[in-house]
């Protein structure tokens, strides 16, 4: 099969021009969003139920995580730029922005691992307290999403290197973008609830 060949994508009328793949990703996002909501609500319930909870910044490093949040925001920008460039048929731009997004994602994970390493060395582990378990479970679940996102970007980047995407064929890039932006969107809430409140 010619890799530059475009193919017809079925359209769903109530959803305008959204493709089936895109709708599938939106549905996944709803379900996944509810998983995060479950974790955050459980954390709030434990806190409201009287569990010991430190003040913001007492244990967790706010400046470091604020920088990590900024990094994730930057990757959302590079990801949307990847889509923007391929919609104009710029394959080099697509590869550049996907590469930058992947690098940003890896940077985010690196900082998170560094943060975990220092906490573990200081004795702040998952079994330390209710707060520690809420922190580790929620941030690890998000980190798993970032890891999945980085692998997903690598797959799309590989296809981009092979010249699979063009101005007429960028559906996969848009679907990847939805997932990556969702990861950013959820982090905004996790950062606020776990680190700042």
């Amino acid at each position, binding site marked *: 099969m010619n890799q530059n060949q475009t193919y017809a994508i079925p359209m769903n009328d*109530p*959803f*305008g021009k*959204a493709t089936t793949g895109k*709708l599938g990703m*939106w549905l996944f*996002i*709803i379900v996944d*969003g*509810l998983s995060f*909501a479950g974790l955050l*609500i459980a954390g*709030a*319930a434990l806190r*409201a*139920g009287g569990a010991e909870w430190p003040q*913001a*910044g007492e244990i967790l490093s*706010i*400046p470091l995580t*604020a920088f990590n*949040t*900024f990094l994730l*925001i*930057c990757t*959302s*920008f590079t*990801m*949307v*730029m990847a889509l*923007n460039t391929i919609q104009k048929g710029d394959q080099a731009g697509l590869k550049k922005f996907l590469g930058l997004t992947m690098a940003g994602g890896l940077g985010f994970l690196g900082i998170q691992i560094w943060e975990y390493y220092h906490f573990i060395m200081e004795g702040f582990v998952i079994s330390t307290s209710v707060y520690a378990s809420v922190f580790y479970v929620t941030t690890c679940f998000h980190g798993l999403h970032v890891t999945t996102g980085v692998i997903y970007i690598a797959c799309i980047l590989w296809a981009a290197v092979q010249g699979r995407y063009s101005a007429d064929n960028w559906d996969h890039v848009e679907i990847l*973008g*939805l997932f990556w*932006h*969702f990861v*950013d*969107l959820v982090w*905004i*809430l996790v*950062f*606020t*609830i776990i*680190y*700042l*409140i």
Partner: protein
Amino acid sequence: MDDHKSIYFKNAIWLAILTILEVGIAYIDISRSGQIVLLLAFAATKMMLVAMIYMHLRYETRVLKWILFVPIPAGILFTVALMYDLPFRWVV
């Protein structure tokens, strides 16, 4: 810089500014409830900016927007209900 690029860039700047303000709110000396309301309002604004601009939700149909936004009030309702239930959790 074309229109879209400019919007995406401005959005990133706004998200960064809101993050800095959030961090500032966490440190300033105001009432706890005021702090929580402000932080959640800022987080909600940032999430809307990501969804509407980066995820292009503003260009999607009304049906899709409804499907996405209906679970939010449901989640808030369940959270509030759960909080009211907490004092009775050991009562059988």
